[in-house]
């Protein structure tokens, strides 16, 4: 088991099942499985159903990925198609495969 502080809590804000949102969810799932296996949780919030949550996390763009834990809070907006940028944004070191 990983120690507690190694747990990553991510939250993905979407607005309905738009292609961008679907793609973002698929992307983050892929990256997490690859880099954070067993140490993460992803919560998806659909603002069409729960618009009241948008203000609290200062959401203005869709989709937005929020790293709640570990702090400080980081945000990545967009469909998360660039893996390197997502990992950089979340401050996750990619496993560098040498040779």
């Amino acid at each position: 088991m990983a120690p507690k502080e190694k747990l990553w809590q991510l939250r993905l804000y979407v607005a309905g099942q738009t292609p961008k949102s679907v793609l973002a969810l698929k992307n983050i799932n892929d990256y997490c499985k690859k880099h954070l296996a067993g140490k993460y949780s992803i919560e998806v919030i659909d603002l069409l159903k729960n618009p009241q949550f948008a203000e609290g996390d200062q959401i203005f763009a869709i989709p937005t990925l929020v790293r709640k834990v570990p702090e400080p809070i980081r945000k990545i907006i967009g469909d998360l198609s660039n893996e390197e940028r997502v990992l950089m944004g979340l401050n996750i070191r990619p496993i560098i495969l040498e040779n």
Partner: protein
Amino acid sequence: MKVQKKNTFPKTPTGISGLDEITGGGFPKGRPALICGSAGCGKTLFAMQFLVKGITDFNEPGVFMSFEESSADLSQNVRSLGFELEKLKSENKLRVDHVHIERSEIEETGEYDLEGLFIRLNYAIDSIGAKRVVLDTIESLFAGISNMAVLRSELRRLFQWLKQKGVTAIITGERGENTLTRHGLEEYVSDCVILLDFRVIDQLATRRLRIVKYRGSTHGTNEYPFLIDESGISVIPVTSLRLDYKSSKEIISTGLPVLDKLFSGGGVFRGSSTLLTGTAGTAKTILAAHFAMSSCRRKEPVLYFSFEESPDQLTRNMATIGVNLKPMIKSGLLFIHASRPSLQGLEMHLLTLHKLLAEVNPRTVIVDPISSLITIGSSSEVRGMLVRLMDTLKTLQINALFTSLTHQQQNEHNDATVDAVSSLADTWINLRNESRDNERVRTLLIVKSRGMGHFNQPQDFTITSKGIRFDQALKNIK
């Protein structure tokens, strides 16, 4: 508010005093309007007043989406104007949503849109049934987002969406170098564009407002001065002089029976304006005091603006020549407002005047002297202010008396103030000190008097402990 013209589209009252008059009823209902201006010109306040008055005066709930100030800061900043945001929030009449974009904690990758903003706005509007919306200032997004193409297309969509939503919105924008707004918001919001301006002329700050564009509606095209004081923003449509006031045939006394007789009507018309000119020490104030007393004797309240003497000094000086103002002040018939002209800008003076008009409800107004105002504004501005003042007084059928200090004995026509107002005044009396046989002789000449005949000869007069005496004129009249 005046009756709306039949052919114009529906409008939303702005809640800003004077602005409805210029815009012919307010902002376009259900459409966005753009307010632009440089930093510190009053955009946020302007927008806030639109919302708050919308709630308090027209029962239209409002949403304030702030991209700059936090909700708490906003509440604090507008409290001095009597806007209690927290109270309105608790009554579910107002919602303030602070959109805070911290560039440093945001990474962008791949495609996105600003649906989150739409959802927040929609949620805020629906939760209180808002009819008015303010976005202050949405240009902050340009600093928070790097993808300009997305931002621009989303802004276009946002303004379309606001229209569909049927809310009357105010979008604020920072003034750009060569454009109205730094990021060209006028491209998207073009139904109604208002420009606010703040400049300092001769060390006096003046705020001005101009309607750059108002699609499908007539509007005033001038620059209008506006004020921010403890009751919010008010715009003064200086040049809205309309010559449609009623003219009274009733004659009132000038306070000097002999002077009255120099007019064929036996005095001046009620609700007319009288200009009293003369060099220093020609007894202008004394004549003004007589005029005030005559109104008081008719039990008609007098509002006396004194720009040079304090009320105390004025009453003392008048008492020495037998004009006793004190009892009139006590009984409330005479209200003296003394202030230095340079204390505030022209517009502030005009506003003070308007406020006192409403408070005192006078039948006679005296401004002594209007020439002092020249020191704080250019002659065209002073003229503008006086035109507006005379217009107001005439509409209200208030007798007006203005004194004006002139500098040249010979040619009073060259004098700036006189030049500015003499043509507007109904009656013009010029006072002079002449040297005659080693003696200084005071004379009075009626230069003009609209609507009645008058003596054309200068009349000698003396000042005694019992007031002004016209010895020679008495003989002439008889």
